[in-house]
């Protein structure tokens, strides 16, 4: 019943030139939003070409009108009047009249769009580069001031250690550390498997199977475990920090905290940063063990290197400093991830779209910073000969 209303006749106007010089316009079809289609455009030209004529406009064939139809009618009617045409209307329904009055009352005079001068192509390049540079510098300044505020709040809380939110820290360690164990275990196991397989093929060629132990243990503990763990944590915990704080900003919880005298840095940022700085080294140590265990398993299966041989060799070749270097990097990575993601969370604006945008930015930034920080460690430690 009502469904057939979807297939309505297109709105249109038929133009007839009378012998006495007058023009008869006959509207046909339904003049409703479903039946006005963009192919009505040519009518604009027809109506625009009528000048100084007597126009008889017959609307009696129109079966249904709504605001859209009457709006279209008003547009054409006004154009005819500005073209000095004398318009007489017939067959206007009551509904049409009523809508006409309402629409005319609320029809805002065509807003004269301010024509902003179109930028030239080559200047637009400079413009976008300039804008990007300025926003990059502003971001850095904002980040530094955020970092400064957090540090200040942290130092102040050291004077009164009882004011530190230990409950929140423990809670965050649970979420960022304990709950991340399964995914860290899986990732580092697979990393161990991958490098053992790749190394085994090469070493077998030289009959140097036993060196697989050095290869796995040093690369995993010194570089791979910290890096992979930090990247997983940046994706998992960093994004959730940004989203949490972003939502709190949208729901004005952060403003509420400020008005109640709870410093959001003290209550939200510091516990998260500290929690991650405690949790990440532990996760890295866990990843070390799993990664080496995976290597040991694959060595046995693929290179026929028994577990006891592997462990004996491990004790001789893996210097403790490699493990320590891996573990020492972890708190730095954690601090970067946590501060960047909290900073991005505070940057969220009052619309839902920005949560997604800043969460993405936060993860990309943290991963980049973690890798950059790792590179600095590599260069410095190698130069120092460690």
């Amino acid at each position, binding site marked *: 019943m009502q*469904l057939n209303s979807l297939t309505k006749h297109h709105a249109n106007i038929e133009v007839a030139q009378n012998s006495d010089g007058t023009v008869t316009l006959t509207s046909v079809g339904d003049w409703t*939003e479903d039946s006005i*289609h963009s192919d009505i455009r040519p009518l604009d030209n027809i109506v625009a070409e009528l000048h100084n004529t007597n126009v008889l406009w017959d609307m009696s064939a129109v079966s249904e009108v709504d*605001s859209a139809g009457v709006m279209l009618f008003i547009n054409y009617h006004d154009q005819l009047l500005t073209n000095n045409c004398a318009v007489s209307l017939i067959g206007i329904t009551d509904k049409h009249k009523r809508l006409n009055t309402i629409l005319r009352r609320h*029809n*805002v005079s065509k807003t004269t769009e301010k024509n902003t001068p179109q930028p030239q192509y080559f200047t637009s390049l400079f413009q976008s580069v300039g804008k990007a540079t300025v926003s990059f510098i502003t971001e850095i300044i904002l980040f530094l001031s955020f970092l400064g505020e957090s540090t200040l709040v942290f130092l102040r809380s050291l004077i009164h250690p009882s004011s530190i939110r230990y409950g929140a820290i423990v809670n965050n360690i649970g979420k960022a550390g304990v709950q991340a164990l399964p995914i860290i275990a899986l990732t580092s196991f697979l990393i161990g498997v991958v490098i053992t397989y790749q190394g085994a093929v090469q070493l077998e060629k030289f009959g140097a199977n036993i060196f697989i132990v050095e290869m796995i243990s040093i690369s995993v503990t010194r570089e791979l475990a910290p890096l992979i763990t930090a990247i997983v944590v940046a994706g998992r915990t960093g994004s959730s920090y940004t989203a949490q704080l972003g939502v709190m900003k949208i729901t004005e919880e952060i403003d509420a905290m400020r008005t109640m005298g709870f410093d959001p840095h003290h209550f939200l940022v510091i516990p998260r940063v500290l929690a991650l700085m405690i949790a990440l080294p532990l996760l890295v140590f866990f990843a070390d063990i799993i990664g080496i265990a995976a290597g040991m398993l694959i060595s046995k299966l693929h290179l026929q290197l028994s577990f006891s041989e592997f462990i004996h060799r491990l004790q001789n070749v893996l210097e403790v400093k490699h493990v320590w270097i891996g573990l020492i990097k972890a708190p730095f990575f954690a601090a970067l991830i946590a501060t960047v993601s909290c900073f991005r969370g505070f940057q969220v604006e*009052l*619309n839902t779209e920005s949560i997604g945008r800043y969460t993405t930015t936060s993860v990309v930034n943290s991963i980049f910073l973690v890798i950059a920080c790792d590179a600095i460690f590599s260069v410095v430690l190698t130069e120092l000969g460690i």
Partner: protein
Amino acid sequence: MNNAVITVENVVTQFDENLVHDGVSLHINQGEIYGLLGGSGSGKSTLLREMIMLLQPDKGDITVLDVDVVHSSTAEKAWLRQQWGVLFQKGALFSSLTVAENIAISLKEYTDMPISLINDLVSMKIDMVGLPAYVAKLYPAELSGGMVKRASLARAIARDPKLLFLDEPSSGLDPVGAEKFDQLIVELRTMLDLTVVMVTHDLDSIFTTVDRLAVLGDNKVIVEGSLDEVAACNHSEIVAFFRGKRGQARMKHGK
């Protein structure tokens, strides 16, 4: 009963152990402003959500514009969704779109009208709900609470709906703003031939705006009818509502 646009019959709704509706029946006539009243948790918002197909009742029938919202086909439901406008309590404007884009979105998606005509209609609707023209280019986050309500009302009436559902239209507005908003709804009803269903607590709205109303309580409709009929009822909740201090003060002034 012939001109009923919405009929609700013996609706039962249960969320786990919590029984919300136990045989709720009411009908809403063409062209009236119908109020759904009740205390917190009486299920009035739930009933509204069932009418607009966001929730399904466990038992019973709801018919809107002759379409059974529980059992009808997908095509009929899609048709029905284009016949109404809904104003959510917090506006629910799409925050990534400007006000003008919010209002234009269903016109652009569902019709093939030329874009200039759509723009004309949008600026007309913005004016109709009493917003200044510059609001069109703003994002929802840049609007005040009252403006958000008006803008989302403009979005709700963008396609000349037959039915308008309002969830607590005057909540979050100052008394003057709320009164103006009520007037606006009455005006729009006359202008656009609307049938309006509103969930409300606001005593002023009930006295000045609503034609008929139903009071929900004890999982049922306690009473349905015009304001006088409802006020005459002796149920304790209605007595508390209409003959409490605020109600008495309001009754003295009448309409």
